[in-house]
């Protein structure tokens, strides 16, 4: 089976007192629709955005994104 990029953004947002997509979007400098597309696995972000997301949640990159 082909590998794909998966992410834990929904769970990480939930752990941060249900951070909204809009709040995360504002902090990483993209639109809410882009956060939604990343969360649903429909769009793979650039490395820079991926690092910004992990920085917002204060966790290493591999806890946000996995390739499996």
């Amino acid at each position, binding site marked *: 089976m082909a590998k794909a990029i998966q992410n834990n953004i929904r769970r990480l947002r939930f752990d941060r007192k249900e951070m909204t997509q809009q709040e995360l979007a504002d902090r990483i*400098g*993209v*639109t*809410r*629709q*882009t956060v*939604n*597309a990343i969360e*649903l696995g*429909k*769009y793979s*972000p*650039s490395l820079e*955005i991926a690092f910004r997301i992990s920085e917002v949640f204060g966790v290493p990159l591999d806890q946000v994104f996995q390739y499996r």
Partner: protein
Amino acid sequence: MSFREKSAWISFICILIFGTLYGWHAVDVEWLHARNGNSVAYVFGTMAALVVLEIALHVAIAVQSPRDARTPKDEREQLIDLRASRVAFYVLFIGTLASLGLGMHLPGANRFLMAQLLMSAIITTLLVRFGIQIVLYRRDA
């Protein structure tokens, strides 16, 4: 629906209206010889009216969601633009070549017909570009 998607819809519909009016006029003038008015004035008048309409509609959606309107395009939106423009480029390329070929070799062809065909290629290109943008925004791509 995001600000960018609304913007793409507005552009698509305005160009569709312009294309329809333009095509109607071109058929009238070129094949039916039904109008004696100034074609250039008609085309540029219609175009100017639709540009004003498009600006007014963009202002309206910007007032509805000012923050989205102020935010520059992010990387996903830029990618959507690029993907749509890439396909549109081929449409323009093929449309231009076809217009030149037809404009030179069709019986009774003249500069006016070639201009009509080139204009049609440009309108089709823009419709394809905004159409693909809408599809990609709809699919959350």
